[in-house]
């Protein structure tokens, strides 16, 4: 790996982020993360009374593993995403044809760059917040800081490495093999009743601190990476996908959406035809809900009066805005504005309409949980109200702050803090009402509906007044 290549990739990564989010706002993001980690660590002794420390640690390590996986995915799919955002992207990582360096050398630089850049952006600030809180309030746990830094870094790198290997399997053996490989591992773990945490050796290293687990964790990073490099196939033929005509029929079927019918039909086709189809929408709802349910189950043992379904409905409402995020993932408003007689707000209205069409997923999930738990009818009715209110509110706030690119705006520190400031108090009020009065919660969430409408209208106005579509 040449140092020049590594430097160029680091510079490029910084410039992509700073041009998307603004230099100052992006630079602030690690500090915001450190502040959140500091606050979380401060409350750790209280939290550990409710949720076992081991569960919390597993949750944090799993999150960093998933984050590593998502960074790896973006690295591999980044060109498509950036082409949509910038028109034509030309990354150093895709320039093996024009630079006198081998593809293996480029991949190595790319991996090292991802490791250094994202460890600095995510892992170090998170551990820094933890270290600061330990130093200020709990010096007794200060010796854990280097270990947490090591195990979180390994969790992140493990996620990154696994995705690189899966992508190599995908290119060499096809989609089926790429899905089958992790599927077989998970199925075997379930069949053999291997605890989930065993699949995450860096977490075991935190618990056991033995050299064997350290070597195993390191090997699980190095071996997949070495296999990826050994079987690298950078210049494979892109598959040309053909589809029969569906848009006009879908738009006719959506005639009730009036002038938005073609926009909504297009958004739904985008979701359906992109990798993972509609399944990815369900997955992004189920994954955080699964984690939330697991934590809630433990948490509610300590508050016998709490109604699981009501609290679950609040979480589900907040998380359901991920449906809107998916709908905005495949295009840019500028792509419409540069050729068609559409306003940004028209495009946004189309996506909100698409969200409404897909939103029955959330009440269906809620009803499934209610049936599984045998919840009383009154509780189900209040939970449905709570779900409707929180869904509408989280959608409106996401649209207001994230516009037509909510996934991108996560890294903007100002937006991230504003999102938190607008969502957290409402969620907390709903949470406390769920503990004291189900009708009170239903009334509060009914009140959120007109509030959401006001925010949504503001989001439309804001979208039309912005020229920030052209980065």
């Amino acid at each position: 790996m040449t140092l020049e290549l590594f430097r160029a990739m680091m510079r490029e990564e910084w410039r992509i982020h700073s041009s998307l989010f603004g230099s100052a706002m992006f630079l602030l993001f690690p500090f915001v993360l450190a502040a959140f980690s500091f606050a979380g660590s401060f409350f750790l002794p209280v939290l550990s009374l409710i949720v076992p420390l081991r569960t919390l640690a597993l949750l944090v390590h799993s999150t960093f593993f998933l984050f590593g996986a998502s960074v790896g995915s973006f690295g591999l799919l980044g060109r498509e995403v950036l082409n949509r955002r910038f028109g034509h992207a030309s990354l150093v990582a895709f320039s093996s044809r024009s630079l006198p360096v081998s593809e293996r050398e480029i991949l190595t630089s790319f991996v090292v760059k991802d490791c250094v850049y994202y460890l600095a952006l995510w892992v170090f600030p998170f551990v820094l917040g933890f270290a600061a809180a330990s130093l200020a309030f709990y010096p007794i746990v200060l010796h854990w800081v280097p270990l947490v830094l090591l195990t979180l870094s390994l969790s992140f790198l493990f996620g990154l490495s696994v995705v690189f290997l899966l992508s190599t399997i995908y290119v060499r053996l096809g989609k089926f093999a790429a899905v089958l490989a992790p599927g077989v591992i998970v199925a075997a773990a379930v069949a053999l009743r291997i605890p989930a945490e065993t699949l995450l050796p860096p977490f075991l290293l935190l618990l056991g601190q033995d050299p064997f687990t350290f070597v195993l964790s390191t090997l699980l990073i190095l071996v997949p990476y070495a296999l990826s490099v050994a079987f690298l196939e950078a210049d494979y033929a892109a598959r040309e996908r053909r589809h029969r005509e569906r848009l006009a029929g879908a738009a006719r079927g959506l005639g009730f959406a009036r002038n938005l019918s073609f926009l909504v039909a297009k958004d739904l086709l985008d979701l359906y035809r992109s990798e993972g189809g509609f399944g990815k929408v369900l997955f992004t709802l189920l994954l955080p809900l699964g984690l939330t349910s697991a934590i809630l189950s433990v948490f509610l043992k300590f508050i016998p009066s709490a109604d699981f379904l009501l609290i679950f409905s609040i979480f589900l409402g907040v998380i359901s805005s991920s449906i809107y995020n998916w709908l905005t993932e495949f295009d840019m408003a500028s792509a419409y504005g540069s050729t068609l007689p559409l306003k940004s707000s028209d495009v946004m209205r189309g996506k909100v309409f698409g969200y409404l069409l897909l939103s029955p997923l959330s009440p269906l999930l809620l009803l499934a949980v209610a049936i599984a738990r045998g919840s009383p009818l009154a509780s189900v009715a209040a939970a449905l109200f709570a779900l409707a209110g929180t869904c509408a509110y989280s959608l409106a706030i996401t649209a207001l702050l994230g516009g037509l690119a909510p996934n991108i705006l996560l890294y903007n520190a100002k937006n991230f803090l504003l999102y938190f400031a607008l969502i957290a108090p409402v969620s907390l009020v709903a949470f406390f009402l769920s503990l004291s009065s189900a009708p009170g919660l239903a009334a509060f969430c009914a009140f959120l509906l007109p509030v959401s409408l006001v925010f949504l209208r503001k989001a439309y106005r804001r979208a039309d007044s912005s020229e920030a579509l052209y980065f």
Partner: protein
Amino acid sequence: MPTAKSPAILASNMMKSYGPVEAVRGVSFSVAPGELFGLLGPNGSGKTTIVRLLTGQIRPSDGSSRVLGMDPAKDPVGVRSLVGIIPDQANPPSFLTCEEYLEFVAGIRKLGDVSGSITAWFDFLEFSGDRKVLCKDLSQGTRQKLMFAQAFLHKPAVAFIDEPLINLDPIIQEKIKAYMKDHVARGGTIFFCTHALEIAEQLCTRVAIIEKGRIIREGRVADMRKRREKLSAFFMRAVRGR
């Protein structure tokens, strides 16, 4: 709507700044109906910004413009409903097929049933084989053909075209040139940005040279021919003073 004598496009002291950067600095010109007007200039001279201003994608910092009698800053959707645009970076939606994209454009523009017209465009630009292919899997040249078809699907009175012939093979280039000439011969107007001076010389009735956000020279191509002056010489003299 403009009268027969009023210009199809009119820019009056149009300015656009991005913070301290002045992308367009007091540009004025007019384009009559039936003209094929070429805006020529070095990279970064402000050509694309002018197209974005005239089609209401961005608002001017100062000055004004009219397209078919409408102000793009006040009624961008109204302007874009009447004109056709091929932007500098052609990016049709990734997960629609070529055919669906043209249907999408027709649906947004409320053109009714245009299946015959869509087939005619596929035949004319010789890419019927790509009809069912997703836009994300298209070559640059095919994307360019698709963007050309979408811009003229509604037979616009005015078309804004940013580098229309890049990536196209010579046969399709000739077809598109012929189409553009025919379009203006029938009273349509084309506003055309390019670096390709030879193509501009073949097609344009009038050209303006822009440098650092200012129009530094304007001229009729017919007058240049009379003077036996090549457009490239006219351009170099304007930009480099040679």
